[in-house]
């Protein structure tokens, strides 16, 4: 559904009708303090926000905390949102919330590697209802290994590789999320992939057969 609204252009001599997208309209209403409008944006982006947090932190509860914190921060600072896309702005706030929690976890390490593994009993971790039990077992096995491999990376490299190779974002979008230039994005991504390659090569025998070549 499109949500059209006319706003005045900057020139005082003429009024140009500007068609706002539904999202732009929701942003404007959120900036005016309408919680309902903001919650529609939450509904639209909460999956991407949660998935970034989950891949950054591993732990589902911490990821939920980081996501909630990110949306609260976003609402409180929505008046500062300018120019960039809402998605990259929200993901940048999410990344910062994750960094904060990672710092806390480094000071008080309580999560073991097992805690970071994909939970085999968690129904939310079964995205495809049609997959066979064998496929599901293999996917979970690989998923657990990949989560551990991601956890071996420094946070800045993990963020870039998750945004690129898990969430499928472009270099330009990643540069916006990480507030860095394209060269930095490329070099972080290159280093992250190389480290993951080394980490997984050392555990080749744990990979599913199709990836052992």
């Amino acid at each position, binding site marked *: 559904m499109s949500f059209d609204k006319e706003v005045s252009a900057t020139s005082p001599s003429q009024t140009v009708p500007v068609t706002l997208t539904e999202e732009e309209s929701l942003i404007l209403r959120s900036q005016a303090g309408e919680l309902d409008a903001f919650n529609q944006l*939450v509904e639209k982006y909460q999956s991407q926000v*949660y998935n970034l947090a989950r891949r950054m932190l591993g732990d589902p509860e911490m990821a*939920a905390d980081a996501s909630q914190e990110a949306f609260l921060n976003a*609402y409180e600072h929505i008046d500062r949102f300018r120019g960039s896309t809402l998605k990259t702005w929200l993901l940048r706030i999410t990344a910062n919330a994750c960094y904060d929690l990672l710092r806390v976890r480094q000071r008080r390490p309580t999560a073991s590697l097992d805690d970071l593994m994909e939970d085999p009993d968690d129904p939310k971790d079964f995205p495809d209802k049609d997959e066979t039990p064998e496929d599901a077992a293999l996917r979970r096995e690989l998923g657990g290994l990949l989560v551990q491999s991601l956890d071996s990376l420094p946070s800045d490299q993990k963020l870039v590789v998750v945004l690129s190779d898990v969430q499928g974002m472009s270099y330009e979008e990643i540069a916006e999320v990480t507030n860095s230039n394209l060269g930095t994005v490329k070099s972080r991504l290159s280093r992250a992939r190389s480290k993951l390659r080394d980490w997984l090569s050392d555990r080749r025998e744990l990979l599913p057969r199709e990836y052992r070549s």
Partner: protein
Amino acid sequence: MMTMQHVTDELSDYLDGAAESPSAIEAHLSRCSDCRNELADLRQVVQMLGTLPELAPPKNFFIDDLMLARRRRARRNQGVGWIVRSIGAAAAVLMMFAVGGDVAGTFVNGAGGNPSAANALKVDQLKPQSAAAPVSSEAVSSRSAAADTSTPAGNPSGFVESRAFDSLPFRVAEGGALVLLLASGGALYYLRR
């Protein structure tokens, strides 16, 4: 013509179709099995990461007025906590100076091995400059004398019981610091509950 220098650093960009000179990399790859293997490994890593599923959020992250109010209250308490901690720290420093000064004074005064001389000095310091208040001077002298009787006679070490806190400024500093310390401790306890 490209030399046999490996193109490891460019392989990640090449994989994403973002290499600056893809034809040069391809030329190198055609001759270098190490880099071909490395590219295949990187491609596999990217492929594996792509298999990580999108997970459903465990709940909706909607925001309500209660959450915002709770957050504002927490932030306010953090602000108050910061003030209280600062006061507590200042009080602790004040107390350290008071106690430290007292201890230092004790050793300086006691080092001469002449307690009565040290006490006499203190009494002199406490005497009013004006001669119009002889009563208070006597009172101080008698208090000093009373304190002298509490000191074991013939103390061989020359260590004397301190009387630095007998002077009014020290009492104020000590008492104030103690009250501030207790108050900030109590406030911190209340805020952290």
